[in-house]
């Protein structure tokens, strides 16, 4: 399959701050997830491929054409930025229609497309309300509407699911998948693995301006599984609880937290441990107040991967 977006040795610096460092990447049609913690360089990468910034080193092409200073290319690209980007005193319709005018459509076509895009994101009823009165989820949806209103073949979505309620997320995920099924290219960024997982199996892990890993979700999961999970169990009697796990081959390490009430366990077999913990609670009558997994987040995965 031919790559739609090609980045070759891409680097971007902000003064002394490294935004992106020697990134080479090929993105094919379908949905690709760009996964990384805040400040990893996801937005920088997206701004480079949407031509808003010029790379210091390297080259980026979209459908074979250079991106920088090539505004005609943006007829084929829809971009949904992470931050709110509104004139609050405009209505949702005016916002989408105003941006559509840059594409050269006639007034009737602008109107029709704006209404259609707003209808797609369930904002048809609220299209004449001022954006000032929109909820967080509605703002996210109107941003998505402006990105799809000109029917682009390539969609660049920077954290599109943040701020949406579960229903809104489900609806947007379905929309993005529909776009994929139409043969378009979608690049989605997120710092939440399950969000990306729900959208695609093709993931690029970005950290500190570099591509850390690239592959499908099971491969990323494997990377995660290769490192022990940390589980904190707060109990009225953590020592009795620890005694029940001594000699358990699934457990790598056990420590007590400074509060004296929390047992911290490191294990490769998280599910096995939870099973045994349930048994311990039921059989031993040990009271458990709270169970948490401090490293069950993307940041921890990245820290494992970079060997911190």
């Amino acid at each position, binding site marked *: 399959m031919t790559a739609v977006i090609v980045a070759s040795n891409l680097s971007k610096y902000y003064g002394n701050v490294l935004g992106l460092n020697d990134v080479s990447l090929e993105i094919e049609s379908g949905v690709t997830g760009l996964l990384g913690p805040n400040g990893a360089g996801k937005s920088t990468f997206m701004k480079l491929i949407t031509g808003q910034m010029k790379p210091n080193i390297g080259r980026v092409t979209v459908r074979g054409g250079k991106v920088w200073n090539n*505004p005609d290319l943006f007829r084929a690209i829809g971009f949904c930025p992470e931050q709110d980007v*509104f004139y609050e005193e405009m209505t949702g319709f005016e916002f989408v229609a105003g941006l559509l005018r840059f*594409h050269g459509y*006639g007034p009737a076509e602008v109107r029709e497309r704006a209404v259609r895009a707003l209808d797609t994101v369930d904002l048809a009823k609220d299209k004449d309300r001022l954006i000032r009165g929109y909820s967080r989820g509605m703002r996210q949806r109107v941003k998505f509407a402006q990105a799809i209103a000109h029917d682009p073949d390539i969609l660049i979505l920077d954290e599109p699911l943040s701020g949406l309620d579960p229903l809104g997320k489900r609806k947007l995920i379905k929309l993005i998948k*529909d776009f994929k*099924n*139409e043969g378009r290219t979608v690049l989605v960024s997120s710092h939440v693995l399950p969000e990306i997982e729900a959208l695609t199996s093709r993931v690029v892990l970005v950290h500190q301006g570099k591509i850390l890993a690239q592959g499908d979700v099971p491969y990323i999961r494997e990377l995660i599984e290769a490192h022990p999970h940390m589980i904190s169990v707060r109990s009225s009697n953590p020592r009795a609880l620890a005694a029940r796990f001594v000699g358990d081959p699934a457990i790598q390490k056990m420590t007590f937290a400074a509060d004296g009430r929390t047992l911290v366990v490191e294990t490769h077999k998280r599910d096995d441990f939870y099973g045994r913990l349930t048994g311990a609670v039921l059989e031993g009558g040990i009271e458990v107040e709270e169970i948490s997994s401090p490293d069950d987040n993307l940041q921890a995965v990245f820290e494992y991967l970079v060997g911190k």
Partner: protein
Amino acid sequence: MATIREKGYAHWDGTLAERRYPWGPITRTGIRLAFRKKMFRFFFAGAFLPAFLALGGLYISERLEDFKALVQSNRALLRIDPKYFAGFMTNTAVLFSLIFVLVFAASGLIADDLKHNSLQLYFSRPIRKKDYILGKMSVVAFFVLILTAVPYLVLVVFKLIFAGSFQFFLEYPWLPLSVLGYSALLTVFFAFYILLLSALSKNTRYVIVLIWGTYLFSDALSGILFETFRQRAMILFSLRANLQQAGAFLFGQKLPHPVPAVWSFAVLAGICVLAAFVLHRKTRGVEVIK
């Protein structure tokens, strides 16, 4: 075997309008948003007052016999010549009302985009940075020209109508060009001046303070420096004085300040160059690193 994709979205077979003015949508939006402000509409209407006064004077000048009692001692004031036009167009109050209008219409042109992070949306559309800046400048140009070139060119026409002859035009054939020239100067200067200050803050209120502050402070500074150094060139620190000096030159009038007009043009051009540099730096996709 290649995957068969189903294209579900609607293909559009229409033709795109030729984008001769890709900045047009920015200008239209800017003008439309300005007219939504009640205060703006009030000041905008008020800014035509000097032109109406000029029209009144013009009418009276042609009907001196009817207004004998009224103008007996002020005949010289009602002599319609380039000085009459220059007197209105370069008047301090006219410049003041122009700034009032621009403060409401244009102070947020870039500041609001910076505040709402809208630049990234503009620059992911088929427009260039120069289109963006041109679009914003055109908003300023629209209001400056509609308050300067349009009414005063109409006044020239009224003069001919009231006089019932082309005598006035034959005497001063270059007057419409002076009106256009001075209007163009005001347009270019205010477009750069307002956008420069609008690009310096995300807060429109600060921009308004900057616009007024810079204009008034330049006047005060010029006065203080003149009193201190007793150098006539200190007048060049005043934006108002430079505009009036350039205006008098373009209307072929005696210069109000004893410095060459070219110096005033140079100062105004310098401000425009500085503004162009700042605009170039400020209007680009920016990543905020925290």
